[in-house]
């Protein structure tokens, strides 16, 4: 099964466009109809992958900004160093899974935000691993 079976919005970017309207047929005609499907390239586990929207700047130092779209793969098991999504106290949070003195904790990439360790917060559930973030420059 390919990602095309999913109801994800497809973004299709034509590789070549036929712009010759008269005269000789385009020598490129035989090579058209190929599209880059970002779903196919970015998502290897379509049935475990979800899109989420970032609100706020707690990960600003790692380049993830307010309003960015993040692609999350829930089939991956989080490892230290991964940017992850967790459920804490009824909210989604985005943090880096980090390790200090042999203990795992969730680190914000912005000095203004506190870290979370698993001891003080009983109700932390790691929800998925962030595989990409998409930022709009417009």
């Amino acid at each position, binding site marked *: *099964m390919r990602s095309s*079976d*999913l*109801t*994800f*919005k497809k973004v299709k970017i034509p590789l070549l466009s036929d712009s010759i309207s008269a005269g000789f047929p385009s020598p490129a005609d035989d090579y058209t109809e190929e599209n880059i499907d970002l779903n196919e390239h970015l998502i290897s586990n379509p*049935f*475990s992958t*979800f*899109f*989420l*929207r*970032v*609100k*706020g700047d*707690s990960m600003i130092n790692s380049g993830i900004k307010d309003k960015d*779209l*993040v692609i999350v793969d*829930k*089939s991956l*098991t989080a490892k230290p160093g991964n940017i992850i*999504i967790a*459920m*804490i106290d*009824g*909210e*989604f*949070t*985005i943090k880096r899974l980090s390790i200090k003195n042999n203990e795992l904790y969730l680190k914000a990439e912005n000095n203004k*935000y506190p870290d979370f360790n698993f001891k003080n917060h009983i*109700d932390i*559930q790691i*929800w998925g691993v962030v595989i990409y973030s998409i930022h709009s420059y417009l």
Partner: protein
Amino acid sequence: MRSKNSSNEAMALIDANNFYASCEQSINPHLRKKPLVILSNNDGCIIARSPEARALKIKMGIPYFKVKESLNSLGVVVLSSNYSLYGDMSKRLMNLLKDCSEEIEIYSIDEAFVSILRPKDKNLNPWARKVRCLIYQNLGITLTIGIAENKVRAKIANKLAKNIDSSAGIFDLVRINNENDYLRKISVEKIWGIGKQTSIWLQSKGIKNAKELRDADENKIIKKLGIVGKRLQLELKGNKCLPIETIKKQKKEIQVSRSFGKPITKLEDLTQALAIYAIKASEKMRSQNLKSSTITIFARTSHYSNHAYQKSAYKKLTNATDNTSTILKIVVELSKEVYTPEYKLSKAGVLMQDLTNCKYLQQSIINYESQEDSKKARLLMRTIDSLNKKFNNEAITWAIAKKPQRWSMNRNLLSPGSTTDIKKIPNITR
């Protein structure tokens, strides 16, 4: 080719626990660990409960208005059903299960029969535990897995897995010593394929549970219940009679019907509702390459109403069609036949029957549409469908659907989270 050693092949019935509630809790963190109920269309009855809501002894099927206040005081979260979310999660679930099994038959939105080869040591528990872990991690959904030799017994095993606390959601009916004790726990009306009438007859003959049906006089069973009963009894004994059906049977009809948010008393409202259902049904047909040659509509009052009314009307066509414009004309005409000003109508629907696959379709000799016209119509329909797909539904529709809908479905309590609409995906708030 994979070898088909039937003695090695096991059948499992896998279903999701509290599927709708789990889908909501999985993508809405604020719902996690909260008592939650989901309402049917039009926010009518309770159709799903989270484990936390079950623990509060909230019952299935009761009308929302009757318990609204008590739910509120108990702090229960109430949501309208969000079928686009459940449909997407179901698709994900079934595709993940496909990768864990030999063959899969999708049986409903949240259950599937799968066939699986038994390992040398015959123990499928490690496999079942892995499947449960995988689905919980990937989708946040808890499964129940019943394992046996065939479908009827896999269904029973699934029931046992649910009822026996120590089973941890997995029950293998083949690997137990005291099978009779377990089969006795399953009363006949709970057996897959036994309807109400049959179960009354069985009980009158003193056959009360699965063990007694398995051991009942074969001649008596076949005489009364025919080949269906014979197969059922054979499956109870451990034979495999009902194969897994991996290919979806072609649909016999396509139905679009909904209850109204407010009862309809005006003809123009009924016509509009039926027109919108007709547009949806035509779209569904085209997406499956089907054409219909019998179009039926119906309208009725509420089941709870003291003055029951139900009427249907149909039209047979010489040429099967999937053209929305043609179908709309017919449905608008027919709507006058089912309309009555005397009753408050609460539900209506459109049925596309006598479906044929476009590939095998024969054009009638007396063809009213010229070839050129039908080609144009086909192109128009295809363009509309692809635009609607691209811009998320109803970018283009017929004028009748765009007028204000006074009767449309209530879904006042829809959850914000979506996995299918980029504008409504969950937010990461901290």
